[in-house]
Each structure stands twice: as C-alpha cells, then as structure tokens.
C-alpha cells in the first residue's frame, strides 16, 4: 500500500478562512477553478516524520477541499535504499560525500521499482526531495507535467551529490526551491518560500493558562520580560553573539534571556556549540539555556507567546521560519538582515533589523521600553505573515506553478 490516506478535507477551508482571512482562500478557489479537470499526485519517501510529511498531511486535504483531486503516494524502499538516500541527503547539506556509483545504481533501481508500483495516473506530478527524484526517468507519460520540489538547502552541497540532482532536473518541467541561495543553476527553477501552518501545535492559539502549564517544568522566572532566541545550537545562529548583545542590553534594562533549541542530529558541531553557550552563560542567573527535543512544538509555541522580544541574530540564514512563527504570534522581533529574514522583517514596519551585537542590544532595549512599538510591530507582523507566509500562500504558489505548466510554462518564461 503506497497511498497515504489523509484526514478528510471536511471544514478545512472554513478553518483556514477563519485564521488566514477570506482573501487568501478566495484566491486559492479562483486558481483551483482554473485547474478544474486536472488531477495531482504528490510523491515523497515517508508518510510520517520529517517536515515534508508534515506539509503534505495539511496540503493534500487542502487541495482536495479546493476541488483539485489530489492523492499522496509514498515510494517503497529497502534498508539499503534509505541508507543511500540519507547519504545523498547529507551530502546535499554539505555533510559527507556523494553516494558511490554502486550505491547510485541501487538508488535508481529502487526508483524504477517505485515507478512501476506507484499510481501516478494524474497529469500534474509533484516529486518532493531527492529520494523519489529518479522516478521521472522511467515513468513520465505524454501530457503529464512533472515538478520537482526541493526542500533542502543546497548552498553547501557536495558537488558530486549536486550533480546527481541537477543531471536529473532536465527531466522535469520545473523545479521549486525555498530560497535563491539554494538554487543550482538549472532552469526553469522557481522560488517558493516555506510557510507555517497556523493550525499546527507550533502555531495554534494558546490561552495564558495553557502557556503557563506548558512552560512550568522549565522553571523560568516570572515578573521579568523574556528575550528569546529559538534556534538550534549552531554557530551560524550566533548564540554567543546573542549573549553578548543581551549583556549589553542588561546594563540598561532588566530582562531574562532564553536560548532554546535542539542540536540537529545531522550536525556534528551542535554539541560543541551547545557546550560553548553553556559555558558562556555560566554564572548568569538571568540566562536560561533550554535543549528541546524535535517534537517540542507546543513548548516553542508557548515560549514564543510568553516572550516580550524574540531575537534571530543569525550570521547566515536560509529562511528562518522561527521569525514567521514569532510574527504570527504578534511578537516584536529583532533580527539580522541575512538570508530570507528581510522578506519577513521589514525594518521599522514588522520588526527591527540589525547588523551587530551593539545594534541588537540597542533595539532590544528600545523594545523593552516601548509597549506601543512592540504592539504596532506585532500587529503589522501578523498581517504580513497572514498574507505571505501561511500555508495558504504556499498552496497558492503550487497551484500557480501548475497552472503555468498546463498553459505552457517554458514558452511563458521565455516570453517573460
């Protein structure tokens, strides 16, 4: 059995209408109307666990509710295939080397098998990530439009691994990436920034009581504003820089710093960085360092909602969805102007952008002292996220790409 049965669409559109507003849902309905008569298949390598499965569990019912018949197929694989695809995945992230030719042969053999087993009798096929990317080689039929959706940051990819991916891109009608920096130079490729699910545990509304109950086990102080950075312990997230900025801010304002995050399993440096952060925070009772498991969605939700100021002082960044999460919760955000952050934080409109620990400290103090500014940035930030970074926008982008594909995307792009 390869097909995933998702939750029935039910009142999903109404739920989205309630949180995202009427306009985004109407836009989806209009685009879906133009796609009437077309059928869609989503293909990935797992039904549970991982960000892609999370996205598809919501996206597939949403597309169904919009009247676009959509099914979700999961490719089958064996133990060796998963080991090889993990190796490929890591190499694309810049960790380790590309699969050997023998491993690649096995990867292709499993993809061929999947191509013969999966039900791909639709005209719009979206393949997620590299694991099922070779199915297109043997299964593509006349009249079908194939889209490859890469959720991975390819910026530091091993060249051999990147070659395996890009050599296949020519079989697709289009490819989609989350950020310009992730895009290999293959055409036609489009940007679809990631989005947040407003109905998920990480973003759903929580009452004050639920927030208190969720955070009680951590023993964080009451009666003092929290300044929080939620991100994994990674040098590029600059947790030491956040500590430095906080120490400067503390000379002027009373506050408590919370550094919360996990160490990614695929990041060998994470434990070292965490140790460095703990050492730097030692002896400061106004700093809490929390290591959270990957499924601590409700804790992160509560932390973000309870914080007075959210910080994302990254040195480099892919997209930083934690910003969109914070803005959606009407929080005031201070962040670096790197990667996808300036798309979310419009300086002085939806948050404050900084370049140095000193700038970060100054803006933290400014926000701690100014309730009105925090409220104003928080409200604008939520509206900005409502329009640009909710799952409704991601669904809209996919519908638009498919619509462009059925209208003849290549000619359309060339004309543009």
């Amino acid at each position, binding site marked *: 059995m390869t097909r995933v049965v998702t939750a029935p669409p039910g009142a999903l559109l109404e739920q989205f209408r309630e949180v995202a507003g009427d306009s985004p849902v109407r*836009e989806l309905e209009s685009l879906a109307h133009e796609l009437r008569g077309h059928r869609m298949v989503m293909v990935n390598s797992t039904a549970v666990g991982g960000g892609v499965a999370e996205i598809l569990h919501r996206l597939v019912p949403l597309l169904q509710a919009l009247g676009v018949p959509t099914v979700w197929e999961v490719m089958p694989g064996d133990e060796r295939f998963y080991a090889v695809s993990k190796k490929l995945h890591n190499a694309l992230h810049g960790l380790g080397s590309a699969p050997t030719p023998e491993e690649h042969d096995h990867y292709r053999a499993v993809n061929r098998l999947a191509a013969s087993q999966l039900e791909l009798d639709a005209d719009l096929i979206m393949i997620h990530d590299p694991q099922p990317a070779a199915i297109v080689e043997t299964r593509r039929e006349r009249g079908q439009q194939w889209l490859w959706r890469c959720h991975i940051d390819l910026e530091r990819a091993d060249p051999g691994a990147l070659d395996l991916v890009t050599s296949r891109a020519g079989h697709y009608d289009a490819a989609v990436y989350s950020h310009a920096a992730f895009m290999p130079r293959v055409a036609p490729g489009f940007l679809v920034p990631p989005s947040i699910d407003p109905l998920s545990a990480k973003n759903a509304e929580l009452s004050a009581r639920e927030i208190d109950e969720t955070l009680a086990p951590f023993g964080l102080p009451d009666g003092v504003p929290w300044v929080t950075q939620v991100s994994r312990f990674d040098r590029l997230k600059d947790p030491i820089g956040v500590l430095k900025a906080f120490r400067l801010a503390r000379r002027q304002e009373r506050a408590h710093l919370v550094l919360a995050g996990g160490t990614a399993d695929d990041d060998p440096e994470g434990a070292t960085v965490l140790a460095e952060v703990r050492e730097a925070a030692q002896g400061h009772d106004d700093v809490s360092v929390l290591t959270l498991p990957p499924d601590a969605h409700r804790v992160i939700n509560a932390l973000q909602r309870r914080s007075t100021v959210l910080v994302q002082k990254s040195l480099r960044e892919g997209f930083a969805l934690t910003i969109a999460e914070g803005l959606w919760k009407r929080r005031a955000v201070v962040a670096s102007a790197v990667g996808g952050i300036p798309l979310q934080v419009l300086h002085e409109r939806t948050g404050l952008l900084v370049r140095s620990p000193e700038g970060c400290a100054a803006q933290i103090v400014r926000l701690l002292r100014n309730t009105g500014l925090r409220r104003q940035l928080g409200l*604008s930030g939520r509206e900005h996220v409502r329009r640009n970074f909710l799952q409704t926008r991601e669904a809209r982008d996919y519908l638009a790409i498919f619509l462009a594909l059925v209208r003849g995307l290549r000619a359309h792009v060339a004309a543009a």
Partner: protein
Amino acid sequence: MTSGREPFQLVGVTHLLRPWGEPVAGLDALLDRVGLAPDEVLFAHSVCRLLRDATLQGQVMDDLSHWIATALQDPETAERLWLAVSTALPRATAVREALTGVLGSLPAKRRAAREAPSGAEFTFLAAIPVRYRSGEPFEDPRAAVAALLDREPGIWFHHLHEEPWEADGASSLLQWLEQRGEPTLAQRLAACTEWGLGVELARTRFRRRWRLSQASRRLVAAEAPAEQQRRDAARGAAAMLVRRLTQEEEAP
C-alpha cells in the same frame, strides 16, 4: 483595447519568482545590474511590493531602498531612491532612469564604501505573472467596482498596477469604466495608485470614500421622488387655480 459594449471580466494575478543574475553586495554592482535588469525584475522589486506588503501602514518602500537602508545601513541613499522610484511608477523606463539616476549621482567613493555583510547580499528576482479569471463578467460598472473592492487584492493589483506597468499607463478596467459612462469613478481609482500604499490599505481607503459617495447617491435618489412630488403638487395646484379662474370667467 477594451470595448465598452462588452461585459468586463475581472482578472486576478499571482506571481512566480525566479532569481535573475548574481547577487550584489554593494552600490557599484547594484548600479551595474539595474542598468541591465529586464523589466520584470524591476517590476518585482518596485511594484510587486505593493501586493506583497499589502497591509502595511503608510507608504511601501521598494525592495532596493529597503535593502540599502537595512543591509547597507545607508538611510540617506535609501530615502532618495525611495522617492525617485515612487515618483517614477508605473513606467519601467522611468523606474530604471530613477534608479540609475540616484545611484549614479552618488560619489564613486561613497558607492564603494558600503558593502553588505556575507549572507545579506541582494538577490534580484523576476516576477512572472500567472493570471486567472475571477467570477463572471460584469455589465454594471458599479457592480464591477464593488467586486474589485470585495475580492482578493490580486485583482486590484492586476488592473490598477500591473496593467499600467505593461501598457504604458493604461488599464483595461479604467478604460471600460470610462466607456460605460463612469469617468469620475475611473479617475478616482487611478488616483489611488498614486498614493504608494499597499493594495489592502489603498482599497480600504477607497472603499470608505466609495461607500460615502454611494450613500450620498442613495440620498439624492431618495430625495428625488420628494422633489417630483412637490413639482406634481405645484402643477396640480396651478391646474386647479386655472380651472377655478376659468370657471369664474365662464360663470354668467
């Protein structure tokens, strides 16, 4: 060219984004790239912002000015550029001239002095429109405008910002309104685009004014029968007087 005899089909738009060229880190490189950038790249960074930042309070800053203000931390250049771009809209040639004019007028030393930190470079994007029909065509101009105010902002954006960009200032909707005897309404809608506001904010403002004007129209319409009644009553009274005078004259 729109024909006023035909019903009008509202069209919405959403945009696919794709990177164009290499990212730039400073003003020198920015000046070079702006001179070469296709129109759809300038469109993505100047006009599309009105749709992307649809709900922002106040005037919306274009992407390039925002980047100069934040990543380069050069607020003076950002302000000059912002004003020049917002004045040049909606024509691509004028926007390009505004950008190259302001950036080119900076002393070479100053252009070279500022550099964005690694990871904060500016990536140019091209916006490729995907259009869709919204509902059934309209015969009544006021019903079309009511739908423009009620439906998704991509429709407003397409007819009032995107079409003028592509057609040297012309909008099929505004032409149709004029041909259907609503030139004032067309002028008022055209004026909204000069505010430089995000689409939602502009719509909200226009909606408020539109409702006021609709209310006064209704008021005038409601008063019209009373005026007619007064006229009829006066005519009746005059006729009665004439009859009475005639009767008196005819009396023996």
